[in-house]
């Protein structure tokens, strides 16, 4: 279980998160929503242990993440940042292979099982055909999927070729669909849903896509100005009142007749109260 206890974070004097409590149960799929600058990415980085909260602490299965050895954390927790830029010419395959880092000893080389895991993750994310391409030459969406494959390659212990024991793994994603076309948005959502269901991977993602979040997540967290505004099941959180108050937009919320999912339709922009 990933647990944030009354965490705050400030960049210098500017406090961007204030007193957030968040419990992500094993196997949950949580979406963090909020307008630009509401602290979504900072919250994700705090959960990943990349930042140390100025107050409070984040624990993974009861142990404070910032106090654990990164290599141990990495076997159970992976993160896909919003964008990855590279100065050197690695291939997509190289990038995914780097996901095996936490499982290798100091001078150990990747073996056949690691290569197999990499191939599997490339296929899983629909990037097999890109494996020999230079990462820098990929499109934004292709990069996002390759980095996702790399993050997924971290989890497999690689010891057995058979089904993995379902350990507690947490996958954090920062706007995983921001540069994807419609088909890959759905494909990624489907993949995340499937990882979550069949392999008991806990998923936490931030996104601007309310409809995607409504369809995919079991639980939503709404942030505004660094404070937690609402949390709960999508249907309970995504009400015209809450969404309107968080995003300053009048919305219409419907149930789609074909798939029964909640759809959020923006209607008009509200003047933001000062």
């Amino acid at each position, binding site marked *: 279980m990933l647990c944030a206890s009354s965490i705050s974070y400030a960049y210098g004097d500017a406090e961007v998160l204030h007193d957030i409590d968040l419990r992500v149960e094993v196997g949950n799929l949580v979406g963090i929503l909020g307008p630009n600058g509401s602290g979504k990415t900072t919250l994700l980085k705090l959960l990943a242990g*990349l930042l140390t909260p100025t107050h409070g602490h984040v624990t993974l299965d009861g142990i404070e993440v910032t106090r654990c050895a990164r290599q141990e954390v990495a076997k159970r927790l992976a993160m896909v940042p919003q964008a990855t830029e590279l100065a050197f010419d690695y291939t997509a395959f190289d990038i995914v292979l780097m996901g095996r880092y936490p499982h*290798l000893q100091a001078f150990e080389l990747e073996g056949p099982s690691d290569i197999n895991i990499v191939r599997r993750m490339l296929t*899983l994310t629909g990037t097999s055909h890109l494996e020999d391409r230079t990462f820098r*030459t990929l499109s934004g969406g292709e990069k996002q999927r390759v980095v996702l494959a790399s993050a997924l390659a971290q989890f497999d212990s690689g010891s057995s070729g058979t089904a993995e024991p379902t350990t507690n793994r947490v996958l954090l994603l920062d706007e995983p669909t921001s540069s994807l076309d419609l088909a890959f948005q759905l*494909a990624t959502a489907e993949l995340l849903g499937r990882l979550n269901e069949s392999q008991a991977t806990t998923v936490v993602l931030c996104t601007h896509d309310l409809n995607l979040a409504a369809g995919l997540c079991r639980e939503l967290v709404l942030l505004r100005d660094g404070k937690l505004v609402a949390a709960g099941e999508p249907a309970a959180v995504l009400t015209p009142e809450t969404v309107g108050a968080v995003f300053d937009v009048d919305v219409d919320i419907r149930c789609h007749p074909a798939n029964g999912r909640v759809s959020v339709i923006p209607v008009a922009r509200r003047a933001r109260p000062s």
Partner: protein
Amino acid sequence: MPGVSALPALRPIAGNHLRRRLWRIHLGFGLLALVTCLCAPLVGSTNIDLGRVFDPTLRFAENVDAQIFIIARLPRALAGALVGASLAAAGVVLQALLRNPLATPFTLGVSAGASLGAMLVISLGLPLTVLGIPAVSLASFTGAIGALAIVYALATMRRQGLSTLVLLLAGVTLNSLFSAIILFVQFLADPTQTFQAIRWVMGNLDVGTYRPLVWALPPIGAAFIVFARLPRALNLLTLGADNAATRGVDVLRTQRLAFVSASLATGAAVAVGGPIGFIGIIIPHLVRLLVGADHRLVLPASACLGAAFLIVCDVGARTLLSPMELPVGVITAMLGGPFFLWLLVSSHRRS
């Protein structure tokens, strides 16, 4: 939908590919450095024969070829190897650390710091040796490490981590600050000393004996022991600190190790041969074109190629205008400059 319709089957592949490639590249580049190191001393005003140098039937005292090889010329080739390998490897490490393929071992103020140290010793007419080490070498090493210490302190001052941006900016600023001080000292110094100092800046591998190499070996050896452990973490650092940390790299520790080891190697190399430019940037680039971006291949291959390249440049320095000797720094820059410009243009065209 691509890729998500069915769970993919396992595709068996040859697993030892990477291991074989690693061995091949280590062996190939290692042999190149070794052969260069053995052949370079054969070139010179007196012709000598490698067979006679290692002829076991001749006693060393009677073997003139062996004496010329071992006593007169080998130290210089070894100095080239040591300096070339250090600068090229330090270049690779700093480029990864700064995530900038244009970084060199001298980007962070080392060469200016070293030059200032050497300049002060020469201009103030300080004693020639301290504890048997040439004072100029000692001063340039101190200057190099001092410059890096200042840059490092600045980069770690503000946040909990190491800011590579501050590292870069502080290094560039320090470079010009030190250069200004050097000009000022030169302005005040008498012309002979100024000339001597300028000669030092041009680089010279004429070490004379093995002693300077023995002194340089501890810092360079320590740096290479650290280098050996770094490559996989460096690969990840180039993806950015966040990606590296979530993949399991202790980012701050890696950055510190990379910075300190690269500084030691650069400082010692400069103390031996002066600030010889371009090795630290062209060799890593050339190697990446040959073997790809994986630092497990790039780092050792760059060290070997750097050694070979500098030895060859130094042979050129000794022989091109013989009996006059050219400064080796001039040769590396004259070869390296145009090559680097070509690289810049062609890589721009590619992207």
